[in-house]
């Protein structure tokens, strides 16, 4: 095992005192910024780049990796407790996580997220250590047609988010698809639905939409129907920690989430959201407690959180082996490599083994640090829910506004946030589920671009989608995912 020896050398690099310090600084900073919507790991690394210019590259990258992983943790904390996802990959977490928190199970939700992230992060880092070259070969086989088919499969997730009325759920999905159309069409450079506002040319940011629909919309709605008098919300019910039952229900979703997240994260155009969607749909399908979904099912937190973190490690596969940045944070890490005069790509493992293996080793260490840092904090975080409702919601809105404004220092973004928040209120008031809108907004643009790319390369021949084996397989899976629930009753009737 050549990789194992190299990894041990990597640990020798990462376990020095200064590098441990950088890792600790990174994960702490990452957790803090991950808490805020908008200010994610990408922006943080970018802001720190000039500061680290004079540092040693190994230490800098260890810190960046810590920020990257820490950001994932922080994002899920606010998703669960405040229904305010810090970034798009933790949107799904808020669906079940926040419901759990509202039922006094916030501690268990945070714990399953933290442990699931640790398990997934460690498994995925191990996969990164040993099968990265293999993953890359598979990932490069994915063409636009295959990506489109993958998006179609991810769209079936919506079926599990529809709520009580299919019509209302589909309307919400279409609203999200419509929002996703706003901005410059990448394929032809034409502006669509920008209302003549130049800021709209880049489209509407999905984090703004998620925070608007979830957090701001909820603040409006709760204010309109506030339960007066005694609040029967108990921040903690049945202990802070996970029960035996919780463990039993969590470990399989952790493993399944890791299995979904790592390979999908390694796809050059995959992104971290798709595995979270698929994991959620899968857990809902497999769960014995399906009725609990939508009301705080722990599987719905454990799976997507694991998928999210495994995908974060997956993103490093194309970055380190090909120099391919596939997420905003990876793009900035690439810029950082170049700042230090390093060219990520096939040669990096040979030219700078210290750096690469030190970085990989630091991922193991960072993961463990995050677990140690976060588990004791679970009890503290949960106390956020003891805050009286007026102050809690006021605080949420201040943070939502801060995060949104700091995306671009733009008042236009704030106006967008508040308008979408009001739409979120109307949707709640008239019983439209908000989650399909967010899913539609994330998947819609990706699906459209890949669809048109595939057709452009094939010069308009639609048979590419069934001719390519990967694409055909995904489409078949998507068909099964939709058809089985519809057909199952027919079989059962006999």
């Amino acid at each position: 095992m050549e990789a194992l020896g190299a990894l041990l050398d990597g640990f020798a690099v990462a376990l020095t005192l200064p590098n441990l310090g950088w890792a600790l600084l990174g994960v702490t900073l990452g957790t803090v910024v991950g808490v805020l919507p908008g200010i994610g790991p990408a922006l943080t690394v970018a802001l720190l780049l000039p500061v680290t210019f004079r540092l040693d590259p190994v230490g800098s990258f260890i810190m960046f990796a810590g920020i990257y992983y820490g950001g994932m943790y922080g994002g899920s904390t606010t998703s669960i407790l405040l229904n305010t996802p810090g970034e798009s990959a933790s949107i799904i977490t808020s669906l079940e996580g926040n419901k759990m928190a509202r039922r006094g199970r916030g501690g268990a939700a945070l714990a399953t997220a933290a442990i699931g992230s640790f398990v997934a992060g460690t498994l995925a880092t191990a996969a990164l250590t040993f099968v990265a070259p293999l993953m890359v070969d598979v990932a490069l086989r994915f063409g636009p047609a295959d990506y489109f088919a993958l998006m179609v499969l991810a769209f079936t997730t919506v079926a599990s988010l529809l709520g009580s009325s299919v019509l209302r759920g589909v309307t919400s999905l279409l609203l999200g698809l419509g929002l996703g159309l706003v901005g410059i069409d990448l394929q032809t450079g034409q502006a669509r639905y920008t209302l003549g506002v130049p800021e709209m040319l880049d489209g509407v940011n999905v984090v703004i939409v998620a925070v608007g629909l979830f957090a701001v919309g909820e603040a409006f709605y709760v204010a309109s129907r506030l339960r007066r008098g005694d609040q029967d919300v108990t921040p903690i019910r049945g202990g802070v920690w996970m029960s035996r039952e919780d463990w039993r229900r969590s470990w399989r979703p952790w493993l399944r989430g890791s299995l979904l997240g790592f390979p999908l994260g390694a796809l050059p155009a995959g992104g971290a959201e798709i595995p979270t969607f698929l994991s959620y749909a899968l857990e809902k399908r497999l769960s014995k407690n399906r009725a609990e979904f939508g009301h705080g099912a722990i599987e719905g937190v454990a799976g997507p959180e694991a998928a999210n973190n495994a995908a974060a490690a997956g993103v490093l596969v194309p970055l380190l082996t090909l120099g391919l940045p596939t997420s905003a944070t990876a793009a900035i890490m690439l810029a950082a490599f170049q700042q230090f005069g390093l060219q990520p790509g096939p040669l990096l493992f040979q030219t700078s083994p210290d750096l690469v293996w030190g970085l990989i080793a630091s991922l193991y260490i960072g993961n463990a640090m995050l677990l140690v840092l976060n588990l004791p904090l679970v009890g503290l975080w949960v106390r956020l829910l003891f805050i009286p409702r007026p102050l809690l919601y006021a605080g949420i809105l201040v943070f939502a506004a801060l995060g949104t404004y700091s995306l671009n220092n733009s008042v236009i973004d704030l106006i967008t946030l508040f308008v979408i928040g009001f739409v979120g209120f109307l949707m709640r008031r008239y019983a439209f589920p908000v989650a399909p809108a967010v899913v539609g907004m994330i998947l819609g643009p990706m699906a459209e671009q890949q669809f048109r790319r595939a057709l452009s390369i094939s010069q308009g021949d639609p048979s590419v989608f069934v001719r390519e084996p990967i694409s055909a397989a995904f489409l078949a899976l998507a068909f099964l995912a939709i058809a089985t629930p519809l057909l199952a009753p027919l079989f059962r009737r006999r």
Partner: protein
Amino acid sequence: MRFVSDRWLSRFLVVGFAVAGLGSAQTLESLRIMAPASPGGGWDSTSRLIQSTLQDTGIVPSVEVFNVSGAGGTIGLAQLASAERSQGDLLMTMGLVMTGAVLTNNAAVTLADTTPIASITAEYEVIVVPADSPFQTLDDLLAAFREDPGAVSWAGGSAGGTDHILVGLIAQAAGVDPAGINYIPFSGGGEALAAILGAQVSAGVAGYSEWAGSIESGELRALALSAPERVEGIDVPTLIEGGVDVELANWRGLVAPPDLDDAQRETLISVVDELHASPEWEAVLEENGWQDFYRSGDDFTAFLESEDARVGEILADIGLVGE
């Protein structure tokens, strides 16, 4: 942290200057540089490298960089043009891409509403095919392209960007209608690179340094470079050598708000002159694989006009901008 150290540094340097007696009318004490893109991109890194070089050399003791991202830089451009009567201490990084973005976005504010200061760096574009592609040379690729333009798919950055412009220019020079190119835009060099490595498309176009790693490791075959002549350190023939009379530099430069008086303009030009002449800047160019592309003052103004016209024409031929 950074805030404190910057301030400390600037005080230190101001004192240093006063003692050295260098404070003539031609110096600036502080400068703000707007990067009209989000952190991490080319304009941002150029701005930040200018910042650190200016501060390290003491040409300008205190430099602040801020980002105004959006719409191919045209949001930043609009903000620059409407900046309150300028103190003569504001610059914006821009480049070839912005001339295209102004046209494709139909922006209200154009580069004519700025005071051009200087162009400073350039990068040449490379045309690549996957290692196992049947196209061994530029001629092979162009022969297939002439035969059936639609069958040759080109991967590159966003529609109307430098990569797209280059493919349009090559089509024009090769006698193919630029409106008939099968150009597949990808968001960011990473996705396009994956598509080429996986042989999903016939060829790819990008700035050389973006794909240098995969070219040097042999996973991509570089067929041509868009430079006017061979570039030292890059073993790739130019388009002109390959019989295609096209050169295109993805240059970057600096512009200032529109309402400068002559003295302010002269001061800013002299600051960039000094930057360009410094050995530190030379080192920055080398580290980043950028070419020196210095044109300042009136030279730059004239160059900007000619590039604007050339880009406008080709984008219209491609069919992205209505005439």
